[in-house]
């Protein structure tokens, strides 16, 4: 056995705080070490060549690289071993950057720590064994969860490549929030006009199975082989027979709020969510219909000419297998009633951004005339308040929601276009216009449309006759200010939707402290999750505008294709393994595994049936929780065996 040790300086990242020469010298006398060298950038081509040459010339068979985190460069150096015919699992990495040089300032102590870590690694490396990764087959179907613009884009891209794609949408129509928007910044093109062709494409695409009114209820399996159960609610209207004649609607006695119009107008229990809905069909809402029972009420069924209404329709459970999953479950607007001083919920004329979208829309509750909710009057002064909930870590959302400066500017500008003698005032903290043509859009709102921007927060909104009294500050003039307005629009921040939270917990996807699903790497893996085979599209992972959402979704589709295009996948070999002789079938490991990768199976042992734990190699992430739990020491870890860890501990405890 011949071990080669390589200490990386990482420019000054490591060498600035650690005496790398001293570390290299410390390894030389250790058992089995043939060579110990320092190099400026071990990951560079010459750095890798140095290792390659040593393997050939000195006959090394094991390699230790003391450098950055293995999550960065373990694959790089494993490839070097593999190329030279060595087993890649005979590489050991020591993290002397993130765990040493970056977190310490005392050079002497940091050097001592690096030496201890390296010594431990040498002792462990000598005990490492060659491992062979397993292979699993791949199902070439894709599942997209959530049918907003993100899910629509991802499904269309996957279907175009040729993969059979299921698009599961919780509500009766795809479209998401974008279907509720009137016009979109920075071009002011009509949201429905650019969205509906894509929605129609989804409905028609031969490779897409659209399941609206449906939710994923169970996900099992692993990358390439997810087994998914989807529940499709009954809609009580046959979409094939329904001719969209609208005869049923006026006869329905149930009148409730229309959520598409943000509850600003009524609808019936039988309805179509909006004219361009896909699938294009009326449905009966089970929760509000008087009973889905002809004995109670069947007024709609009686008038339906094509006999599309079927009270006997039942929910279905659909079971399918998928190779990859795209999560596109979107966002929700921040509940602005939480901001007590703005009075949303108790003051009629304080409304949300989405409500204003509907008020601006020609198909909205006011037919596109800007009217305020309390008395239907056209407001002469409208105040737009930015950061309603955002950028307030003490009480609300800590982050910037990214789209609201732009949509408040859009709202003010659209209002000025519709009410020529009206005054639009935006209260803001900072104006954030980071997107192509966004700054120009903001400047146009001020310059051409006279939108007034006041830098400062609003402290309270009070009712004063039929007007609103707004108090706040103008930090540019250092004055507290007050003014009257007829309508206030709050720019709600974005937060993860209930559906996003639900799917994250079902798929065991880690979330940020804010509840958005965490990317596998914030910069380099923005559409991957830590669960292989599960990808992110759109606002489920954080605030995004439409262009960014669409690009993200296409990225997710492309990343999913890298799995769907394979016949089989290699699975990392550092996973748990059970010593059947020691296992007594207690099942503690089964309960402890966060990835549900262990099951108890009946086995025949010398004529007796015994239960033993069996690890699903594809599901196991190699986290080690089970090994730590097993009282019998029966479940171990390939690549991290007890004797290897003990050797490390022994080295570290000898000072």
């Amino acid at each position, binding site marked *: 056995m011949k071990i080669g040790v390589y200490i990386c300086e990482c420019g000054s990242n490591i060498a600035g705080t650690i005496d790398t020469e001293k570390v290299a010298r410390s390894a030389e006398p250790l058992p089995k070490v043939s060579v110990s060298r320092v190099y400026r950038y071990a990951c560079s081509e010459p750095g890798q060549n140095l290792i390659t040459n040593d393997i050939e010339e000195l006959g090394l068979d094991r390699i230790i690289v003391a450098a950055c985190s293995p999550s960065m460069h373990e694959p790089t150096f494993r490839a070097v071993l593999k190329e030279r015919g060595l087993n890649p699992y005979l590489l050991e990495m020591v993290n002397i950057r993130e765990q040493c040089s970056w977190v310490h300032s005392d050079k002497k102590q940091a050097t001592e720590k690096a030496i201890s870590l390296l010594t431990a690694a040498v002792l462990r490396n000598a005990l490492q064994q060659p491992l062979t990764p397993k292979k699993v087959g791949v199902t070439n179907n894709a599942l997209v969860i959530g049918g907003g613009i993100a899910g629509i884009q991802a499904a269309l891209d996957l279907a175009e490549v040729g993969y059979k794609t299921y698009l599961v949408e919780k509500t009766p129509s795809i479209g998401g929030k974008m279907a509720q928007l009137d016009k979109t910044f920075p071009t002011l093109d009509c949201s429905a006009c650019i969205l509906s062709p894509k929605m129609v494409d989804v409905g028609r695409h031969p490779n897409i199975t659209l399941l609206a009114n449906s939710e994923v209820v169970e996900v099992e399996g692993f990358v390439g082989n997810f087994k998914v159960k989807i529940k499709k609610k009954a809609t009580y209207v046959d979409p094939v027979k329904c001719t969209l004649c609208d005869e049923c609607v006026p006869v329905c006695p149930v009148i409730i709020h229309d959520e598409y119009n943000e509850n600003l107008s009524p609808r019936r229990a039988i309805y179509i969510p909006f004219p361009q809905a896909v699938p294009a069909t009326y449905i009966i809402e089970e929760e509000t219909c008087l009973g889905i029972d002809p004995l109670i009420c069947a007024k709609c069924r009686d008038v339906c000419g094509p006999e599309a209404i079927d009270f006997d329709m039942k929910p279905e459970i659909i079971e399918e297998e998928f190779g990859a999953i795209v999560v596109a479950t979107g966002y929700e607007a921040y509940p602005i009633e939480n901001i007590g001083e703005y009075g949303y919920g108790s003051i009629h004329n304080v409304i949300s951004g989405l409500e204003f979208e509907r008020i601006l829309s020609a198909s909205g509750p006011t037919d596109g005339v800007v009217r305020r909710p309390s008395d239907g009057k056209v407001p002469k*002064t409208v105040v737009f308040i930015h950061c309603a909930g955002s950028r307030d870590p003490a009480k609300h959302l800590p982050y910037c929601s990214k789209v609201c400066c732009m949509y408040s500017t859009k709202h003010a500008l659209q209002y000025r276009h519709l009410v020529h003698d009206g*005054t639009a*005032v935006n209260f803001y903290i900072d*104006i954030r216009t980071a997107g192509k043509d966004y700054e120009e859009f903001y*400047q146009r709102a*001020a*310059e051409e449309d*006279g*939108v*007034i*921007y*006041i*830098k400062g927060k609003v402290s309270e909104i009070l009712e004063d006759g039929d007007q609103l009294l707004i*108090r706040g500050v*103008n930090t*540019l*003039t250092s*004055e*507290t*200010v*007050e*003014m*009257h307005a007829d309508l206030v629009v709050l720019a709600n921040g974005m937060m993860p939707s209930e559906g996003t939270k639900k799917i994250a917990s079902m798929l065991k996807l880690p979330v940020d402290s804010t509840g958005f699903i965490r990317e596998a790497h914030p910069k380099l893996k923005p559409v991957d999750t830590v669960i292989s085979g599960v990808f992110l599209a759109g606002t489920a992972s954080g605030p995004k505008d439409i262009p960014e959402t669409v690009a993200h979704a296409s990225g997710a589709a492309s990343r999913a294709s890298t799995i769907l295009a394979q016949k089989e996948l290699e699975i990392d070999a550092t996973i748990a393994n059970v010593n059947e002789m020691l296992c007594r079938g207690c099942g503690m490991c089964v309960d402890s595994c966060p990835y549900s990768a262990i099951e108890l199976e009946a086995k025949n042992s010398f004529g007796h049936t015994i239960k033993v734990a069996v690890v699903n190699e594809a599901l196991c992430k190699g986290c080690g929780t089970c090994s730590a739990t097993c009282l019998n020491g029966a479940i171990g870890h390939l690549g991290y065996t007890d004797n290897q860890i003990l050797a490390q501990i022994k080295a570290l405890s000898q000072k």
Partner: protein
Amino acid sequence: MSYEYIKFGKEEREFREKIEEISGENVFSCYQCGKCSAGCMFSDKMDRTVNQQIHRIQMGQKEKVLAANTHWICASCLTCSVRCPRDIDVAAIMEAIREYILREEPEKIIVSELPKEVLERLPNIALVGNFRKMTG
């Protein structure tokens, strides 16, 4: 606690539009970066910075604008106009404020009330100078 009451009515609009008319500039082009005040050699002598004056014109706050000494301290050196990233002729706006005040001021000399003997001795140019104030 007292609040400065702000409104955006006729008076405010007329004041802003007059300044815009005299200066030929769109005050809403200003996004309050402060570059003008940052480079003005006399900012420390002004009781309101140049950008604050412009912001107040945006808001139509005539009294506050006129009460400041900013436009009187301004030497019309044009540094601000050259530097403004939004290409606003800031010095022209300072000039417009001065013009606005002069135009609003009551006439110091009413020609028709000047005694004949004074009129006869007065050079023509002095009379022209007095009339000019009322033009534009």
